[in-house]
């Protein structure tokens, strides 16, 4: 367990056992397009079949790469995360999970045809409801939306919002344009209206190079710089005034890491102080906006080499409400049950496991005693 202290593991094991946890980022895998056929309408079922459209696993997360499937979490055949029984035994049981939120990363958000994106989003959401949520009461899900077309995205949110097991809206970190831009605002209006946080999850739609210098050679680089897409989204949402216009909106950054947050906030505040006349609707310091509106999932933690530095990082972040427990199942960031890194205070761990997710997700509060 290279990244967790024994102390933290013991402490949190007690917390898991006593209170359970809400896991805010797990990844059920679509086995393949054949699985979604029953959930597509006639036109798209015919198109997908005739044209052999298949293989839409996100290239941001190739299932064969060890980081995207922990060795002991891989099924004998098929993709990691594709087997409900394994997920129950490996992701839910060991952490005494009360709820786990399914973020399905199958590639609907990356196709260029917006109508196909809408059809795939509907199919994925309906498949999640029928084959995961109906069969396992602890599971909740994010609404996959065709972000390529805001009208269609809102349509899908409206179609799914009545099902209270869908607790947030899922967007990929690297899309066609930064999400603060006004063309996306109807998505935030729908989110606020239905009490759905918006989750921006790691992953690129490959509309833009993963760095300002173009495409790196290695997957390792792509993964490391993925948090830069999250940071760009955060800057965009703040600078365009999304949180001013939608004061009840919560944004969850998932699989983004968070130890980069202190220096990000300092730089954002310094730049805003100098340049606030450019964005007069940003009426508070970015750090305050982040602390009020933005939440982060735990894994991967990108922990410093010693616990004392983690403690200082937490002090710099300056709020114990920002962190949401996640395993990122079946992705491989920790071994055994060592999901909680060293340097988090027992009080923060407690909040992260249960209180913070319940504060973040109004729909979870409705059913959890």
């Amino acid at each position, binding site marked *: 367990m*290279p*990244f967790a202290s024994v102390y933290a593991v013991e402490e949190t094991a007690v917390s898991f056992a006593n209170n359970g946890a809400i896991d805010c980022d797990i990844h059920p895998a679509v086995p393949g397009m054949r699985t979604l056929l029953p959930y597509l309408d006639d036109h798209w079922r015919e198109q997908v079949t005739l044209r052999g459209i298949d293989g839409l696993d996100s290239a941001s997360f190739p299932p064969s790469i*060890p*980081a995207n499937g922990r060795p002991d979490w891989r099924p004998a055949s098929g993709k990691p995360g594709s087997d409900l029984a394994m997920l129950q035994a490996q992701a839910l049981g060991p952490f005494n999970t009360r709820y786990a939120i399914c973020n399905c990363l199958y590639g609907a958000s990356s196709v260029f045809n917006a109508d196909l994106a809408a059809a795939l989003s509907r199919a994925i959401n309906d498949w999640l409801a029928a084959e995961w949520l109906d069969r396992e009461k602890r599971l909740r899900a994010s609404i996959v939306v065709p972000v390529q077309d805001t009208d269609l995205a809102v349509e899908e949110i409206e179609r799914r919002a009545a099902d209270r097991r869908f607790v947030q809206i899922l967007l990929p970190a*690297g*899309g066609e*344009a*930064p*999400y603060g831009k006004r063309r996306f605002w109807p998505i935030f209006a729908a989110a606020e209206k239905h009490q759905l946080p918006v989750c921006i999850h790691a992953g*690129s739609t490959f*509309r*833009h*190079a*993963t*760095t*300002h*210098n*173009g*495409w*790196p*050679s*290695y*997957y*390792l*680089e792509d*993964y*490391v*710089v993925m*948090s*830069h*897409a999250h*940071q*760009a989204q955060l*800057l*965009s949402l703040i600078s*365009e005034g999304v949180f001013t216009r939608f004061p009840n909106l919560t944004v969850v950054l998932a699989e983004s*890491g968070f*130890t*980069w947050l*202190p*220096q*990000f906030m*300092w*730089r*954002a505040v*310094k*730049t*805003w102080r*100098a*340049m606030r006349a*450019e*964005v007069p609707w940003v009426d508070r310091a970015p750090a305050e906006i982040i602390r009020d509106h933005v939440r982060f999932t735990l894994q*991967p*933690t*990108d*922990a*410093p*080499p010693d616990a004392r530095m983690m403690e200082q*990082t937490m002090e*710099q972040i300056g709020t114990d409400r920002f962190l949401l427990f996640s395993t990122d199942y079946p992705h491989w960031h920790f071994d055994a049950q060592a999901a909680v890194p060293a340097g988090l205070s027992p009080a923060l761990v407690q909040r992260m496991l249960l209180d913070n997710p319940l504060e973040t997700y109004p729909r979870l509060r409705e059913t959890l005693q």
Partner: protein
Amino acid sequence: MSQALLERDAPGQTKLGIVDCDVHHATRSPQDLYPFLSHQWREHLATYGSRRPSPFTGASPFFKSAPALSRHDTWPPNGGSPGSDLKFLQEQLLDRYGIAFGMLHLLTVTGMDQRNQDFAAAMCRAINQWQYHTWTQQDQRLKAAIVVPGEDAAAAVAEIEHWAGNRDFCQVSLVTHTIEPLGRRRYWPIYEAAAAHGLPVGLHTSGYNGVAVTPAGWPSYYVEEHHEVSISQQALITSLACEGVFARLPSLKVVIVEAGLAWVPSLCWRLDQHWRRMRDEVPHLKQAPSEYIRQQVWFTTQPMDEPENPEHLGAILSWIGWDRILFATDYPHWDFDDPENAVKVRLTEEQRRKVFRDNAHAVYALT
């Protein structure tokens, strides 16, 4: 360090003999380069102009906070743009703050990101000639960077070879917004040449490559783009480390200019963590990425990061290493850091000497 420098009397508080690792001189107009361009390229510059993958002929697509990006008081009284008048730059920066050496980074004209590659090479040669005759030979405190047409590695190496050994030039400068990530092998001959001549590679955010500023697309505002400078420099360091540039060239020194530095620890933690999981993909790395960064990268201070609790800055500087930090003012730009009050943490005398002077002497071998 000579006693003379230490005791240099200056109007400012400090008598250290500061090395300012980011000073922006400027052309009054592109015509300043005419004496150093052939007839063909003069005509080309006058007719076709600077063609870079960016929408406007005469402006950045992200409009800055001030004209010429500069402090209002830095416009020379005799005309010209900020940084274009040597005498005024001497008075306002070098003399006033007791700056013993100023490391020049030219932003008003560029060569490397010109889309016509022959023109890029001609521009770089002209810029270097202009720097030598107009600046470094006029004031020995000013040290230039060899500007190279880095998208054409052979031409870039030729430019390095032309100037190497001339101590007016203390580093090699690449535009940082490149066609491919800077660690990719098309750029390796440049690093090999720089390392062979003991010249650090100074990377100051600059240039246009037509690639979106962020992996999430183009932002709307300068308040975003200005912050993205530090983020894209993190991607650049990630590239140099992961692609194996540092591993293959242990004597290569890289100076990251004007990107801040508070991000260095968290970037290193993230790099190391995921490298441990995926090191089989990058077998050319023999140690953790952070080890290479610690050994081969220096960082300039401006714009100085400002933690909410100023004490935390000291911990960050310590983590990076006191011998890796180089003071810079960014004169004459609007976000200039004053040597007398920019670093808002108490430094020991030894730390102060390192940051304001000794580290720069070590990395640039200043004479």
